[in-house]
Each structure stands twice: as C-alpha cells, then as structure tokens.
C-alpha cells in the first residue's frame, strides 16, 4: 500500500531536473516536498502518477489507485460537480458496471459531505469559489479509494482561512482513507499542519530530510534559508 521512489531521474533538455531522488511514504503518512520554484517538486508528482515518463529509477506502488489533487483543481468545466466527482466511476469500463445511478448519487452526497459541501451537485465549476473547487477536486480524487494521494500546492492562491480549511481536509482524508500522501507546497503552515516528514529539493536533489519540527529548528543552511525566506544561503534561484 505504501509508495517507494528509488533513484528517480528526469532529464529535460540535457539537464537533470530530478537527480537520483529516493524516498518512501508509508500508509497513513504524509510527506511534504518543499523547495524553490523550479526545483522539481511538481515533476516528482507527475512522474509518480505516470503523466511524465521517467529517465531512470523505480517507483513502487501498491495495487490501488494513485489520486492527484491539482494546483488549480483541474475540474472538468463542461461537467457539473456530481459528474466531476463520479467521472472515474462512470468512464472506467471496469467500474461503470458496478454502480447504478442511485449508487452514484449516494457516493456524490457522501464525498461532498466529507469535504464539507452539500447541495452543490448540479453546479458547474465556474459557479464555485477557488476553495470550493479545491474541495470538489478532493472529493473527485478519493472517489476510487486510492492508496496514494498526491497534492500539488493545494493551498496555492487561497486566502489564509481557506488554506487552513484545506489543510484540515488533507489531515482528515489521510485519517479516513489511511492513504500515503505527498504534499508539494511552499507554505510553512501547510507543512506544519499536514506533514509527518519533509524533504527539501534543490536543483533536483534532496538537500534535507526530516520532520517539520526539526526543519523549523533550522539546523542546516538549507532549512535556515528556506524557513527565513532569505536570499542569502546555498540555494540560488535556478534560471
């Protein structure tokens, strides 16, 4: 059920954007991946869920699904909330025969309740706020009961209160599903509130691995620079 990444490599234009990255996330555990923009955080998620082919290494997952919550929700704007949530159940041939329309309606209600939304089944994504879209995308992600959930900057572009709400749902979904979770984020609050462990990437390599509390102690030059948001330090903006 857990997910393990071994010596992962990704090369773009002759440059290693992911360079020999290894880590493991156990069931019911949340790993935060932090680092500068362009350090390869989102690329790791795309490699794990197979959106981008890898150039080396190994990704070991269980039999279940891998779900992903996208940075800007990526809800299907031509479908209403109910159809967005049950998209996989309606379109995957091995799943569609298992569910009647009544089952699907029940699943929608149940998943929406889980993310604190009710009565929006027939609304379209354009009628929802950014925070609500994000929560609907959470509901869509967990509909196939995945064993791994990937979050790509889940609080990006949200106000602090909505961010707190989203962070609460990340914790809640982990407890409800016991899935291995990986959260890519820049936000210190998201790291503190959701993560059990943190890895920091710089130039495609892991430069720090530890707990959020240890990270906040700023025992290394990398964590010190990241936590204090300083321009001085070993990490330089990558052109």
């Amino acid at each position, binding site marked *: 059920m857990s997910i393990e990444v071994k010596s992962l490599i990704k090369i773009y234009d002759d440059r290693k954007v992911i360079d020999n990255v290894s880590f493991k996330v156990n069931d019911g555990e949340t790993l935060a991946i932090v680092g500068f923009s362009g350090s390869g955080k989102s690329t790791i998620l795309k490699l794990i869920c197979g*959106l981008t082919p890898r150039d080396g290494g190994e990704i070991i997952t269980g039999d279940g699904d891998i779900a*992903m919550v996208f*940075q800007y929700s*990526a809800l299907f704007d031509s479908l209403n909330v109910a159809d967005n949530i049950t998209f996989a159940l309606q379109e*995957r041939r091995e799943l569609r025969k298992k569910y009647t329309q009544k089952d699907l309606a029940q699943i929608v209600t149940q998943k929406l309740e889980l993310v604190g939304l009710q009565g929006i089944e027939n609304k379209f994504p354009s009628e929802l706020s950014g925070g609500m879209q994000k929560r609907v995308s959470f509901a869509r992600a967990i509909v196939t009961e995945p064993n791994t959930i990937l979050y790509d900057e889940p609080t990006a572009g949200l106000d602090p209160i909505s961010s707190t709400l989203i962070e609460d749902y990340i914790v809640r979904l982990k407890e409800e599903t016991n899935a291995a979770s990986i959260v890519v984020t820049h936000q210190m609050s998201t790291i503190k509130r959701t993560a059990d462990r943190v890895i920091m990437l710089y130039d495609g390599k892991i430069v720090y691995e530890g707990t959020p509390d240890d990270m906040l102690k700023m025992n290394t030059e990398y964590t010190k620079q990241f936590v204090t948001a300083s321009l001085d330090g070993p990490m330089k903006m990558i052109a």
Partner: protein
Amino acid sequence: MITLQKYYRQSATYRIFKGILEEFTVFLETLGQITEKLGLTAKFILKGEIEKKELIEQCNRFGISSLPITLSITAMTSIIIASQVAAEMVKQGGSNFVGLLLTILFVREAGAVMSAFAIISMIGSSMASEIATMRVTEQIDAIQVLKVHPVRYLFVPRVLAGIIMMPFIVILASVIGVIAGAVTSDLSAGLSYRAYFDSAWLGVYIKDLFVSLFKAACFGGTIALISCTCGYHASGGAKGVGLATTKAVVWSFVAIVIIDMIFAIAFFY
C-alpha cells in the same frame, strides 16, 4: 575574432535553411501525432469502446448547431455562381445546361467542400480550443490520472460524430445549393424551374451521390481528428490555445483540399 562557424551561423542562408528545417520538423511531428491519434481512435472504435452519451452530444454539436451557418454559406455560394453563370449561359443558348452544371457542382464538389469549410471554422476551431484549454488547465492530466484514456473520452465521440453527421450536412447543403441555384436562375435569367430541374438530373449518377457521401464522412472525421490532435498537443497557456486553434484550422483546410483532390483523381479523372 569571429570564427568561421560563428560567421556561418549569422549568415542569412544558414538562418533561412534552419528556419525551413525547423518548420519541416514541426510538420513531420504534427503528421506523426495525427497518425498516432488516428490509430488509437480507430482501435477504440473497432473495439466498440464508444461513449454513447458523449457521442450524442457531439453529434448534436457537429450537426445541428452548425447547420444554419453551413446552409447559409452553401446557399449564398450557389446564388453567387448562378447569378453570374445562368444569364450568360441562357444568352449563349445553354439554358438546358444551367441546372446540370449547378447540380454536378453541388453534388460532387461544392456541397461537401463549402460544408467542410464552414465546419472547420465553426466546429473544428471550437473543438481545438476546447481541448487545448483542457490541456493547459491540466484537465487532460486529470483524465489520465483517473485512469480514463483521453483518446477514448475526447477523440472517439468527436471523430465518430464527424463521420456520422457530415454526410447529412452535405446532403442538406447540396439540396439547398441546387434549390438556391434554381431560384437565382429564375430571377436573374428568367430560366423556368422546369427547364432547370429537367436538366439537373442528367449528369448526376448514383455513383456521384455515394462518392459525395463517402467524401463527406472522410471530411468530417478528418476535421475532428486534426482539431482534437492540435488541441491535445497544445502547451503554454492562452497563447498555446490560440496557436493550437490556428494550427487546427490551417491543417484542416489543407487536409480537406488534399482529400478532395484524391477523390477527384480517384473517381472522376
């Protein structure tokens, strides 16, 4: 000191050839993408993996919503041609051939081609921009993560809708074209409807109708396939959506002309 290599790279000849090579590479890349998607779409269709609900929606979009513009364009084309040709032919003693000429023109060529051009402008461009927007907003990534094949979900219903609906559009367009020709010939050259329709069917054979319908189905499938492929491979935000839409329109126009030429040579040469 400037090296010979640097000097060569700055030369106009080098830059022109480099530009041509880059364009040729893009051309081959696009051709490869279209071929790959054609193969995948055909595979899903042959396996019967067709989303009926989505297919009906796309048929409605392809056929019904485009009909007013398509028929208007065909009718106006017929009026333009008939108003210039009918009077002159009547004057030259060729009144018996006006109906024949316009019927052959619309059944064999203009009905299908004018419909295809209208469909490219209306439906092809909207398909390309819709799918390109889905690409740049990660909706296609979401489809893949949810383990649904994007070609099955996006391409199959659209391409099938094109193949199914285009012959119906062409039948209607051809009929409208022939009727508009009759009305225009009557008004501009005083050619009676009887004289027009008596000659109209003389040069049209069953083969012409079948070839026209087969060609229409090819046009419909091609427009949908190219539009979906260009949208699918879009990148880079709003600019990428615009470029994908333009590329879809240009490629579709060129493809239609090439297919039309192949049909003309194969069946009427």
